[in-house]
C-alpha cells in the first residue's frame, strides 16, 4: 500500500487564485485577538511562571488572612466595656493639679499635673474624669476577657469629647511588699519590670474628696430592676360543701355542689388539717371576704353543750361541681403558681444583687471618704512604703500571681480547632474555671491540643477564639464540647444566667 499520493507535473493554482486567499487585514485582526490573552496563556502554560504567580497569590492570601485575623483577634480588652462593666468609681479631676486617687486599700494612682495627654499628644490641663473598675469575680473577668491575672482592673481617663492617654509621670503606687504587676498590651499580659521603691508622706495621699458613686442615689427601678411584689400564694386543695336541705340555706343557692379552694389565712382554719372535711355541720354562714373569696363559718353543737365553730376563707370554683373537675383546676393553678414563683425568685435575686452592689459601693465610698477626711486632718508626717509602677497607658491591669496549675493532675484534652457550621477557628487561649470557687486555670497547648488541668467538678471551659468566645461544661468525659457564646450575652449578669442554663 502506497504511503504517498505522488503527482508528476500537477496543475497548481493560478496566481490570481492564490491572491484571492490573501487577506492581511483578517490576519492582523486574528493576531490582535490572540495577543489580547497571550499574557494569561503564558501564565498557565509556563510551569515556572505559573508556580511563581501561584506562590505570590498564596503569599498574598496568607498576608491578607494574617491581617484579617489580627483585626478579628479577640482583643476584648482593647477598651473597657462600659455598658457591661460600668466603672466602680469615677473621679472628676483637673489636669493642671497633682492628684492621688485611692483605688483600693493598698493601691493608688499618682497623677502629676500635665501627665495626661490629649489626642494631639499635648498635656491636658482641663477638667477630665478618671474611671476605675475592679473585676472582682470570674464572670466579670470572662465578660471583659481579662483572664489570666489576679484582681484585674481597668483605668480610663476621658473628657466629654475624647479619651486621654497616659503621659510621663503617671504611676500606680502599691503599698506593702512588691507584687508583680502586669498590663494588658498587644493582646498579652506584660509584666511591669520597671518599678521604683516608694516612700511618700501618708498625709499627702488623699487630695480629692471621693465622688459619691451613682448607684447610691439610684433606686432599683432606675436601675431597670422590677419592683418586687409579694410572693405568689400557694393554692389550697379544693373541698366541697354539700347542703342537705337547700331550703334552709338560701344564701347557698348559688353555690350548690360547688367546690371551694381553701386560702390559707391567719386566724382561719385549714379544712384539711382541722377536722372539717367529711364532717356534718349544723349551720353554715357565708360572707364576702375579698373580691373573689368568701368567709365560711361552720357551726354545730359541741359535746360539752357549747358551740363548735370553724372559720375558713375559700374561693369558689363555680365551674367545678365534681371532684375531678375541681382537681384539674387545682393542678392548673399549681402550675401557674410554680411559674409565678420562679419569676418572683428571679426578681428577688436581682433586687438582692442590686442591694449587695449598693452596700458594697456605700462601704467603699464611706471608707474612701473616711480616709480622705483623715488625710485632711492628719498632718503628722509619716511614710508609706511600697512600689511605684510607671503607667505608660490606660487600659487593663492585673497582678501576675501564678494562675493555678496542678502538675500531677490528670488532663483532659480539647481540640484546638472547633467547627461551628462552616466556620472554624483556632483558639488563642483556653481556661478551665471551677464553677464552685471561681478558680481559673490556664490550659496549655501541647501537641496541637489544649491540655486542661483537671479540677473538681463542675468545671466550665472558656475558650477565646479569633472571633468570639466559646464556652462549655466539663462533664467527666474525655473531651469537652464548647459552643460559641451568643452575641446577646454582654453583661456579667447575663453571662451568669447563660452559664447557669448551660449547666442544666
Amino acid at each position: 500500500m502506497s504511503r504517498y499520493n505522488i503527482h508528476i507535473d500537477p496543475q497548481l493554482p493560478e496566481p490570481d487564485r492564490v491572491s484571492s486567499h490573501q487577506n492581511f487585514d483578517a490576519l492582523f485582526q486574528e493576531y490582535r485577538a490572540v495577543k489580547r490573552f497571550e499574557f494569561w496563556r503564558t501564565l498557565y502554560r509556563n510551569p515556572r511562571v505559573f508556580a511563581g504567580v501561584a506562590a505570590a497569590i498564596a503569599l498574598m492570601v496568607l498576608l491578607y488572612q494574617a491581617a484579617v485575623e489580627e483585626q478579628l483577634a479577640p482583643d476584648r480588652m482593647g477598651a473597657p466595656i462600659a455598658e457591661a462593666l460600668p466603672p466602680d468609681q469615677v473621679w472628676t479631676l483637673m489636669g493642671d493639679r497633682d492628684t492621688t486617687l485611692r483605688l483600693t486599700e493598698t493601691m493608688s494612682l499618682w497623677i502629676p499635673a500635665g501627665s495626661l495627654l490629649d489626642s494631639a499628644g499635648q498635656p491636658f490641663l482641663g477638667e477630665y474624669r478618671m474611671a476605675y473598675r475592679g473585676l472582682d469575680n470570674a464572670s466579670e473577668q470572662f465578660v471583659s476577657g481579662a483572664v489570666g491575672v489576679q484582681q484585674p482592673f481597668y483605668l480610663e481617663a476621658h473628657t466629654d469629647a475624647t479619651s486621654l492617654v497616659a503621659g510621663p509621670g503617671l504611676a500606680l503606687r502599691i503599698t506593702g511588699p512588691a507584687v508583680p504587676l502586669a498590663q494588658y498590651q498587644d493582646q498579652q499580659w506584660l509584666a511591669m519590670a520597671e518599678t521604683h521603691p516608694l516612700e511618700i508622706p501618708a498625709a499627702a495621699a488623699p487630695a480629692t474628696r471621693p465622688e459619691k458613686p451613682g448607684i447610691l442615689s439610684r433606686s432599683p427601678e432606675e436601675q431597670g430592676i422590677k419592683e418586687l411584689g409579694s410572693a405568689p400564694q400557694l393554692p389550697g386543695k379544693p373541698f366541697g360543701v354539700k347542703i342537705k336541705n337547700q331550703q334552709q340555706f338560701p344564701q347557698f343557692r348559688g353555690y350548690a355542689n360547688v367546690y371551694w379552694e381553701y386560702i390559707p389565712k391567719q386566724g382561719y382554719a385549714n379544712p384539711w388539717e382541722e377536722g372539717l372535711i367529711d364532717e356534718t355541720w349544723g349551720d353554715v354562714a357565708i360572707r364576702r371576704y375579698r373580691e373573689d373569696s368568701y368567709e365560711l363559718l361552720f357551726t354545730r353543737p359541741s359535746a360539752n353543750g357549747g358551740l363548735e365553730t370553724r372559720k375558713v376563707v375559700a374561693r369558689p370554683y363555680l365551674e367545678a361541681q365534681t371532684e375531678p373537675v375541681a382537681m384539674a383546676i387545682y393542678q392548673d393553678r399549681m402550675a401557674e403558681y410554680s411559674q409565678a414563683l420562679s419569676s418572683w425568685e428571679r426578681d428577688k435575686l436581682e433586687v438582692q444583687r442590686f442591694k449587695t452592689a449598693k452596700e458594697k459601693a456605700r462601704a467603699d465610698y464611706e471608707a474612701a471618704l473616711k480616709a480622705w477626711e483623715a488625710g485632711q486632718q492628719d498632718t503628722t508626717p509619716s511614710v508609706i512604703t511600697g512600689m511605684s509602677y510607671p503607667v505608660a497607658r490606660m487600659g487593663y491591669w492585673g497582678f501576675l500571681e501564678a494562675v493555678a496549675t496542678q502538675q500531677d493532675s490528670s488532663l483532659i484534652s480539647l481540640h484546638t480547632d472547633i467547627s461551628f457550621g462552616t466556620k472554624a477557628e483556632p483558639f488563642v487561649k483556653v481556661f478551665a474555671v471551677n464553677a464552685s470557687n471561681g478558680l481559673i486555670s490556664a490550659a496549655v497547648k501541647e501537641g496541637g491540643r489544649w491540655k486542661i488541668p483537671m479540677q473538681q467538678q463542675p468545671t466550665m471551659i472558656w475558650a477565646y477564639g479569633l472571633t468570639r468566645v466559646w464556652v462549655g461544661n466539663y462533664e467527666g468525659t474525655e473531651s469537652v464540647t464548647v459552643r460559641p457564646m451568643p452575641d446577646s450575652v454582654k453583661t456579667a449578669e447575663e453571662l451568669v444566667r447563660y452559664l447557669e442554663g448551660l449547666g442544666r
Partner: protein
Amino acid sequence: MATTSLTSEQIREEHRLVEAAQRNPNRFGVLYERYYHPMFLFVYKRVQDEDTTADLVSQLFLKAMTKLGGYQFRGLPFSAWLYRIAVNEVNQFFRDSQKKRHVSINKIDLEGLMMEAEEPVSDDNLQVLVASFQILNPDELEFLEMRYFEKIPFRDLAEIFQITETNAKVRMHRLLKKLKQYMEQSRQQATN
C-alpha cells in the same frame, strides 16, 4: 520562490523589514505580501486542496506574527524560518487528519534527481524512482522535496531542520544512497 536568489545584501535588507515588523506588527504586511505565494504553493503541493491550504497558510502566518518577537537573525533569509513553521504546520495537519500526504513533482526536477543519484534517465527509471519515494519516511521525503523540488540550499535546510549544514549534506547523501539501492533491487527483481 526559492531562497537561492537572495544575496547577502538582500538578506540584510529583508532583516530590516523583520525588525520593523517586530517593533510594529502592522509592518508584517510587507513580509506577508512577499512570502504568501511561495508558502501557499509549498503547502498546496503537499495538501492538494485549495481551501485547506488557505487555512494552513493563514495559521502559518499567524504563528509567524505571534512568534516574531522571538525570531533571531542568523544571516539567513526570513523564508527559512517561515519554511520551518510551514513544515511543522503541514506535519501537524497530517497527524491530526490521518490523510495521505501528497507529493507534487516536476518531471524536470525528477530528472535532475536521477542525475544526482547517477542513475540513467529513462521513463522506466523515473517510474522506479517515483516508486522508491514510498519507502521514505515523512521526514526523509520532506528533506528530499525541499532540496530537489523546492531548490532550498543546504544552509537553509540546516536551519529548517535544526541541524548543521554538514549534517544536512550527509543526510542527503544517505537518502540518495537509499533510493539508489532500492532502484537497483527493483531492477534486479525485474530482471529475475
